[in-house]
């Protein structure tokens, strides 16, 4: 009986301090991140007519995928987003891995290289996009002056202006700017590998090439996966570089239109096109679904297969 009373007296008061710690951050996070995302997904299931929103189920999504007014733009934007991602994945990431491996093998003396290679990453994509559109401009003709002496002058074309080359060129500009990010991540993973492991392999007569592919690469495989996922999420949302060079109409003839430029034009309106928030929300919902698909593939296909080694 006495013990019970003691326990009751010791019972802590409601922990208000936890609430105080959590509240400010979660109010802002909930109001400006969670609520808008959930509300956008909801809005994708509604249609606007005469200022009234009514529930229409998946009709917006069906229109996006099959209505002749929407479907061609939707599928081309989706395709371009995937191409944009693949170019970054296949060009930016392998080069980043090679550079990170070179930097990691130099120890402290590589500092100046790291600093210079990372420099473009701190610039705004809008600025670098303009910068490259000037450098590649046929008016200025810099590529021509560089390529002509080595006999490849005919290759110099208005890459950003042609339908066939505009999208890959923009993807490469984006890769040029952001290559610093995967470099730093690979580099951090590579220098975390214990030295004795590598030394032991060299003593056994392994070459630098062997050591990299048979020891280091398997050890950093989890990072390779995370970077692939990050590249997917980031590039699937490509907007800035396209908007800066091509505007929201993503010319020439929509050849550089991605999911985000399509989303922007639809929900915000652009030039002659009136804003359509519910169709915009449906496009955002589709993007969200595709991103989640990527995340699920990463979790269930990649993470299950990739071995993680405890160091």
């Amino acid at each position, binding site marked *: 009986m006495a013990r019970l009373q003691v326990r009751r007296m010791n019972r802590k008061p409601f922990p208000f301090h936890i609430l105080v710690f959590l509240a400010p951050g979660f109010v802002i*996070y909930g109001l400006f991140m969670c609520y808008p995302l959930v509300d956008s997904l909801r809005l994708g299931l509604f249609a606007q007519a005469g200022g009234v929103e009514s529930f229409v189920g998946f009709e917006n999504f069906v229109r996006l995928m099959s209505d002749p007014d929407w479907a061609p733009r939707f599928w081309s934007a989706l395709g371009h987003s995937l191409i944009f991602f693949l170019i970054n994945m296949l060009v930016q990431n392998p080069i980043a891995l090679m550079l990170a491996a070179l930097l990691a093998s130099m120890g402290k003396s590589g500092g100046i*290289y790291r*600093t*210079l290679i990372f420099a473009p990453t701190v610039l705004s994509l809008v600025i670098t996009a303009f910068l490259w559109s000037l450098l590649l401009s046929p008016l200025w003709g810099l590529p021509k002056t560089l390529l002509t002496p080595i006999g490849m002058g005919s290759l110099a074309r208005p890459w950003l202006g042609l339908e066939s080359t505009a999208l890959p060129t923009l993807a490469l500009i984006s890769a040029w700017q952001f290559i610093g990010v995967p470099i730093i991540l690979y580099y951090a993973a590579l220098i975390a590998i214990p030295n004795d492991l590598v030394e032991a392999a060299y003593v056994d007569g392994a070459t630098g090439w062997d050591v990299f592919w048979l020891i280091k690469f398997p050890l950093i495989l989890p990072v390779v996966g995370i970077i692939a996922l990050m590249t997917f999420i980031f590039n699937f949302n490509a907007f800035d570089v396209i908007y800066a060079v091509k505007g929201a109409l993503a010319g020439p003839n929509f050849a550089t239109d991605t999911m985000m430029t399509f989303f922007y034009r639809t*929900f915000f309106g652009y030039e002659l096109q009136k804003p359509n928030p519910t169709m915009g929300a449906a496009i955002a919902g589709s993007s969200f679904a595709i991103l989640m698909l990527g995340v699920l593939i990463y979790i269930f296909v990649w993470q299950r297969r990739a071995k993680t080694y405890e160091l």
Partner: protein
Amino acid sequence: MDQAASDAEATKHVVTTATSQAHTRRLNGLVKHSILIFFCLLAIVPTFIIVVNSFKTRDAIFSEPYRLPTRETFSLKGYQTVQERSDFAVYYRNSAIVTLTSLLLILLFGAMISFALAEYRFPGNTLLMLLLLAGIIVPIRLGSVSILRLMVSFQLVNTLVALILVYTAQGLPLAVFVLTQFFRQVPRDLKDSARIDGASEYRVFWLVLPLVTPAIATVAALTMIPIWNDIWFPLILAPGEATRTVTMGAQQFLGQFANDWNAVLASLSMSAVPILALYFIFSRQLLRGLTSGALK
């Protein structure tokens, strides 16, 4: 005799492999440095060409793009146009206000959440952590339709407050993710001895905060650059003249003066050079912060 000969042979062999190994190593080093130098040039030279040409006359920009400005070709005409036709001082001020205020809120509120999640066990702890982790993966831009509506109903469109609120929400997940791991490493005894001395939980938080400073530097490095460089939310929430950020202002100016090469080159230089200068001053700290953040 035979033994001695084969020993000598072996020694000779070892010596030759050693020298050839040294050779390959030197060659390897040369190849390594050449590759790295190539990519460093690729990273730096484009910006350099733009900046150099921004100080030249229009004729010289086109006739000799790869030359440094000489006494005859030097011109500040582009900078004068930018000076007269746009307000880069205001743009820089707006960007600084938005970036620094967001950063401060992300660090303060992020540290408070991280401390609570790392320190106390309460129902919903894991759930809140998962909710935040989802925010690292899902891009906030996908919620733009509703964010715009929200800002319209709060009458915050064309204010810097709108941008600060959105960037704070966007930056919190990663901040909490990094900071929680650091708060977990703070020794229990330290906090408990403060409590025995009668310190309140808030006091304990302020006592522990200085111990996670390296993590705070990492979070600052990770969140600052994307906020400064963003074009999406300024475009949607604050396109007005008075609230233009550097990225937004440069974008508008560049679109308007697309054919005035002097002005375009000058405004590009004005947007890029101060940031690059700051970067080169703080690059050691920034890269160290990012590298250690990546290891977590």
